[in-house]
């Protein structure tokens, strides 16, 4: 700098800082590359069997499937057997506040502007069922003048661009190759960012286990060729499940033969649960 006295001091300083910055970022790239290079190498060494063969089980290759779920709200009778089956199948706490799947009731009364919405946590419904461990919709509108009413099953939407996965600070929740969003209960630190991030309220915090939990589309069942528990028990066929890669699967036919919609498309999550027969109030 002493040699180039002709240059104004300010410019010289700027040039120096630019060089320093460049050098620093070069060093960063080198170190970063080294780190990234080492980690997969180590992981591959200590990890599961090599890529040859199917993953995650011997008989199931996740690259061959792309699961999807359909809900036909025009068929739902609100019997809540899906909720019951889900709780049994997945060790969901037995109470009226934590669910992997639940059913909402939308009721328009004559002369009322707003829609009335209730679900299992509503005290009237808890009273009708007798306890928080059983589930039943109270017949609370039997004497009311009902303009319109319908039931809507809800569950995790297994979005193509899941907000919950994006916010997880430790990589404990992720999207699988076959289109399911899963939670690694061993790795979850229980920070609940994902519970906050989900626009659908599909996640809950399991205090017993200290982890977030949500619907997995019964990943342990679908990888064995079974249906998710809620689909299995639905007596009216309001829940449809299948492989979107198979053009003749129930879900492909459901999407093809119906005008389907997803919840909150504006959120940009691109859900994979497709609804038929719901109003704009449902989201």
């Amino acid at each position, binding site marked *: 700098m002493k040699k180039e006295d002709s240059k104004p001091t300010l410019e010289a300083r700027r040039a120096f800082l630019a060089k320093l910055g460049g050098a620093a970022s070069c060093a960063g790239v080198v*170190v970063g590359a*080294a*780190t990234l290079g080492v*980690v*997969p190498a*180590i*992981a*591959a060494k*200590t*990890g*599961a069997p090599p890529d040859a063969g199917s*993953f*995650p089980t011997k008989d*199931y290759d*996740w690259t061959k499937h792309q699961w999807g779920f359909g809900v036909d709200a*025009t068929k739902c*009778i*609100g*019997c*809540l*057997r899906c909720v*019951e*089956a889900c709780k*049994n*199948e997945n060790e969901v706490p037995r109470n009226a506040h934590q669910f992997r799947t639940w059913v909402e*009731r*939308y*009721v328009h009364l004559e002369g009322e502007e707003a829609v009335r919405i209730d679900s299992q946590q509503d005290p009237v419904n808890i009273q009708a069922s007798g306890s928080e461990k059983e589930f039943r*919709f109270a*017949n609370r*509108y*039997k004497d*009311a003048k*009902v303009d319109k*009413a*319908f*039931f809507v099953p809800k569950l995790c939407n297994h979005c193509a661009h899941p907000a919950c996965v994006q916010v997880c600070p430790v*990589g404990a*929740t*992720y999207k*699988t*190759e076959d289109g399911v969003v*899963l939670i*690694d*209960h*061993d*790795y979850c630190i229980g920070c609940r960012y994902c519970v906050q991030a989900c626009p659908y309220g599909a996640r809950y915090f399991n205090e017993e286990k200290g982890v977030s939990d949500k619907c*997995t589309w*019964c*990943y*342990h*069942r679908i*990888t064995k060729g*079974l249906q998710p*528990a809620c689909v*299995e*028990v*639905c*007596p*009216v066929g309001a829940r449809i499940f299948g492989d979107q890669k198979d053009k003749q699967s129930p879900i492909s036919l459901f999407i093809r033969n119906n005008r389907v919609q997803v919840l909150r498309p504006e959120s940009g999550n691109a859900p994979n649960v497709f609804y038929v027969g719901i109003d704009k109030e449902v989201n």
Partner: protein
Amino acid sequence: MPKHIFRLVSLIAGFLAVTIIAIPFLVPDSFYRFGHYRANSVIEIAAQEPVLQTANYCKDCHTERHAQWSASNHKSVTCEICHGTALGHPQKGKLPIPKDAARLCTLCHEAMPGRPRTQPQIQVAQHSSGQQCNVCHNPHSPKIAAALVKVAGNAAAGKRKAADCAACHGEAGISPNDTWPNLAGQHAAYLVRILAAYKSGDQKDVAMTPLAQALGDADIQNLATFYAGLNCKGAAGGKAAGDAAAGKVLAKNCVACHGETGIGSNPAWPNIAGQQPGYLVNVLKAFKAGLRKDPMMAGVSRGLSDTDIANLAAYYAAQNCQSPKQGKAKP
């Protein structure tokens, strides 16, 4: 290199070295195999055992029930909805038979705003006057099989045809023999249903099958009308072997369909008051053994011993077939 720069650089280098060495130990196995998560967690989740076993699991042992259920309009209601999850059954014991059927059935069938019209629904307060659903409906095949048949026959024509039946069932529909049923005053709809069943082969009997096969549909209507119009006054309870008092206690289970004194409320179900006791015994045994098919009767007769059957027969045989109608004409 100035000393302070050397110190700084070596400090950074040392820190980086420690980090790079530590990372493989801190990152769990299989973490970056597919992405920023543990690939092994997918394997762990996929390896969990299903709790719900599906109806196929029940099929091999409960073959008969499974067959009945899978042919019924309840086939979309799987076993585990009512009986609970089957994981661990039968090793860990029996699955429950729901005690409060009314509570269970109304989960789906209570009339409620929001349920689609196609769903069969009942006004609980008016439907059963507090009785359990499985008194009249078999949960494995809930549709009441004996749908009401319309009978519009000609009694006079029936009388001519009935000449062929008189040898066994009596000229006035009062059977001379303990083992053959009285027909006088029986519900016409029931007679039509049973004759049609003999004709189609759904129900079999050495004597009745060929006779019924010779009948036309009009003949069946005429015969039913004729016998339904006869007076059962002459029906004699006869010499019953059982204990009528004990039978009365058991008869509580039959009341819903056959009435307190054997006068059925629904014309599709037979009156059994004053019926021949020997016939009643045979029929109940046939239901119990599965020789006569009826989902409802198969269920209620299964638990009856031979003594129970004799007692029931004695009780109903002793009832007056003309006792005031308690049942309504409509179901």
